[in-house]
């Protein structure tokens, strides 16, 4: 395949924020021709392809599924009225998603959830929700990515593969980046990957320590024991030789400044939040000797923003149930997958998310039996399930708004090009729904 630089453009827009992963790279340059994006600089392949292929399979008009089961284009008024009526008349509505929209839209969503007594939940319920549970159990020692860039001499990735999933993580923030106290970038750092699989991240690490699948807890427990000065009386733990564990702890203990990143390979394997619990405790213990902090690798560009906005508004991070008029949060009780498995919801709205891709099959089956609505930009598996589809706009491309990077740094993501004519921003759509629900309430004398 031949790569040629793009020269056919008439405008450059610099310092744009990428709206793909939790890296939220803010050094992206969009190349515009006739006010359309024709190229992108600095972005990784994932980000670039998302920006460049923006119009591919784009949802452009509101649609309602007709009696033949075909999605048929309709007007905004008809679609919004129908969604508002369905939402207003439902007993157990769930508003899910939010990882790829702005905090401004999320706050509007929370307000809609409150006024309709809905459950509001986001992707962390199936990714780093367990990590958040661990933070609630034992603490939350984190840092911003610049701390890693400037100070870290030892970097550990566990159960995560940023080379494929957050492609610029190592180059922009951690491993290869030159920092104040690490002027030689990669040469000044030791990078270790702990993962059952040999990943592309393991490939660029100084060392790959393979351990047995689902034996995370045992491994970290052993590491913690060794750190505390105990000797292991077995030859290996979780498939890792005890000498290797001693060596690893020695490296960690003698780091000047260590940073640890972990992903779903940890938070979603057998012991779930307990894996993260013990890892946090290891980090806490390490701070007796030197400096360590850790960070979950967040997926979507604003999945963290949802947790922040949610705690700002309600005190709880995700899976919040407003059915009693005040927020309730109980993992396993008010979280989406559990609700679907119990076949409780009678209305399901997904905003900027695709449960069709993300959810386990058994949970999705219930969506076939209830009214399902999509607010999103592109056609996907969830569109096939949806009864009503409301086409929205891209944050950081067509609509401005706030996104929170994985380390909770807020970024103002600007608007660069005009939205497709008949699409509206998530904020506008949610605001319209709120107004329409309020008019229904007024009609009923409930307001």
């Amino acid at each position, binding site marked *: 395949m031949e790569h040629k630089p793009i020269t056919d453009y008439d405008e450059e827009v610099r310092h744009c924020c990428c709206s793909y992963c939790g890296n939220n790279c803010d050094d992206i340059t969009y190349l515009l021709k006739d006010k359309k994006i024709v190229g992108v600089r600095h972005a990784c392949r994932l980000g670039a392809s998302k920006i460049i292929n923006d119009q591919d399979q784009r949802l452009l008009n509101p649609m309602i599924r007709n009696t033949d089961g075909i999605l048929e284009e309709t007007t905004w008024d008809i679609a919004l009225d129908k969604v508002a009526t369905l939402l207003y008349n439902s007993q157990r509505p769930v508003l899910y998603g939010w990882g790829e929209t702005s905090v401004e839209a999320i706050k509007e969503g929370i307000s809609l959830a409150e006024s309709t007594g809905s459950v509001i939940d986001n992707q962390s319920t199936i990714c780093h929700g367990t990590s958040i549970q661990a933070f609630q159990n034992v603490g939350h020692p*984190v840092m*911003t990515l610049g701390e890693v860039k400037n100070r870290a001499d030892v970097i550990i990735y566990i159960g995560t593969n940023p080379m494929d999933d957050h492609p610029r993580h190592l180059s922009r923030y951690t491993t290869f980046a030159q920092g104040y106290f690490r002027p030689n970038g990669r040469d000044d750092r030791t990078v270790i990957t702990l993962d059952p699989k040999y990943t592309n991240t393991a490939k660029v690490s100084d060392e790959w320590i393979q351990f047995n699948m689902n034996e995370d807890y045992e491994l970290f427990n052993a590491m913690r024991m060794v750190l505390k000065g105990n000797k292991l009386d077995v030859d290996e733990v979780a498939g890792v030789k005890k000498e290797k564990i001693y060596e690893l702890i020695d490296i960690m203990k003698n780091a000047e400044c260590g940073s640890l990143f972990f992903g779903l390979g940890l938070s979603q394997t057998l012991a779930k939040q307990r894996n993260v619990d013990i890892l946090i405790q290891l980090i806490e213990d390490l701070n007796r000797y030197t*400096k360590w902090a850790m960070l979950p690798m967040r997926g979507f560009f604003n999945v963290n923003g949802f947790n922040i906005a949610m705690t700002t508004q*309600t*005190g709880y991070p995700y899976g919040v149930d407003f059915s009693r008029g005040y927020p309730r949060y109980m993992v396993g009780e008010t979280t989406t997958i559990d609700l679907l498995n119990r076949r409780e919801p009678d209305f399901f709205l997904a905003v900027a998310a695709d449960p069709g891709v993300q959810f386990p099959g058994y949970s999705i089956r219930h969506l076939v039996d209830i009214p399902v609505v999509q607010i999103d930009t592109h056609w996907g598996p969830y569109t096939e399930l949806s009864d009503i589809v409301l086409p929205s706009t891209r944050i950081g491309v067509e609509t401005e708004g706030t996104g929170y990077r994985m380390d*909770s740094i807020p970024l*103002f993501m600007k608007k660069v090009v005009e939205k497709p004519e008949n699409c509206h921003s998530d904020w506008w759509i949610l605001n319209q729904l709120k107004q329409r629900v309020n008019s229904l309430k007024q009609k009923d004398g409930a307001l």
Partner: protein
Amino acid sequence: MEYILKGGVVFDPKNNINGETKDILIRDGFITDAVSKDAKVLDVSGKLVMPGGVDLHSHIAGPKLAVGRLYRPEDTRRGIKKAPNSVQGFETGFSIPSCPTIGYRYTKMGYTTVTEAAVPPLEAKHAHEEIESIPNLDIPTLTLFGNNWFMLKYVRDNNMDDLTVFISKWLKLAKGYGIKIVNPCGSEAWGWGKNVDGLDDPEPHWNVTGRQVITSLTKVNERLGLPHSVHVHTNDLGHPGNYETTLETFDCVKGLKKNKNVERDQILHCTHVQFHAYKGTSWRDVTSGATELIDYINKNDHLTCDIGQITFDETTTMTADAPMEYDLFRLTGLKWANKDIEVETASGLIPSIYSKRAPVSVLQWAVGLEFFLGVKNPWKIALTTDSPNGGPFIRYPRVISWLMSNEKLNDMLDNHVHNWATRRTAIASYDREYSWNDIAVITRASPAKILGLNDRGHLGLNAKADVSVYDIDVDDFDATLKSNSKILENKLLNSLYTIKDGNILVKDGQIVKLVKSNHLWCNVCGMEDKEKELIKSIRPLFNKYYTIKYENYGVNNHYIKPDTRFDINYSEVD
């Protein structure tokens, strides 16, 4: 809208009105001396009337709060209440309430201005974005500079000119109101898991001391003529023996000149002084060091302080003094949160349980009260709990009940708290009782003056129409009685009226109106060209050491609607 608050008993210390029965006239959001016949009369005969409350040090918005809420759902659960009416929404949280809840509770207490005391510039957007969700307050934010790398470099090079320009520009970028210093050099040392000990212990890399940071930033603050002085959380917080560091900190700026254009008296504000006033070498032999500090405050006029009063609650401590929080974690084993923020600062959190039976909690509680009772001039102090560090802000009325009733205080000392209070502090030697006028000073007039906000904290002509009225018949209610302390607390928690900018926000203890909170920030004028030059030299380093681009760093107008910009005219001084 025009109002006449009729027949209230008014306490307005700035204007020497001490319990006079007086009408307060309001027009177009300000206090006035004449209204038209259309003015609405609110009968508050005999009721306690004061200016709207002003809190000069609280933690209500920003990254620490976000971490705190995320990791303590048990705190959120503690304060759940259904929405009481169609105006006010639900409440959640106790020590770290949700943003809307913070607005509701302060408003019901009659407060109209609350300072967010610690905002790292990198996450200033976040703080302002959270303020967006807090209703009904005027909120100045203090910007953290005490461990900023650019600051450390300028101080190390003794480059006061560039430091001045830097602070001026950074306040604009962060939309900050003033300079906050927290454990100068210590939080930077925490980047390596270390701390500094005392005022003259240099940070390992920059070779700069806390003394250099505090004196340099004080000079800059006075050069710029910012309305508020530097706002300092001194080194060694919470360490037995730290009162000496605090005394040295008080003294290290004594000879510096105050800008003649500012109306405040102080050049240094020492915050939550209670946490900095311990003698001894460990928590075993700790005693109060308040007497020496009180003596210094009584004899010198260049400093003010707020207290950081302990309230005997389970709360959440949160501070940019990150190494201290790790120390607390080692001490208590409770769940520790930490957040290091590149190039600028660090922060830590840990739950804290202050118990009446725990010797250390009681000592801390008594030390705070010693300051209240020992500092002779109430204009030099302000009531804070360093919310939520010493206790949540909803305990201010309780603290007031302790200050107004010697009987209540003695009952606590005799019957309810551990004997360290009397054995290890001088609290039992005080019999002072605060008057309503004194209360109006420490909760209104003095914090407003210390902050340099001349348009509030009083009810003079053209002051902002921020007024609180409490259902207390001043002449018939004896606040000195122990038996009245609970009643007093409840009345002060639920104002009869809270009026802000001429809007009635609370009526009969219920919130009746919500308005957007106002972002207060300082804009230094007259140095724009120098700022541009400085940015040219800073930008390459900025882009190298931060992980976001300079162009995406500042807080743009998107986040500060509505705002009040204080234009400060900068003129070169010697």
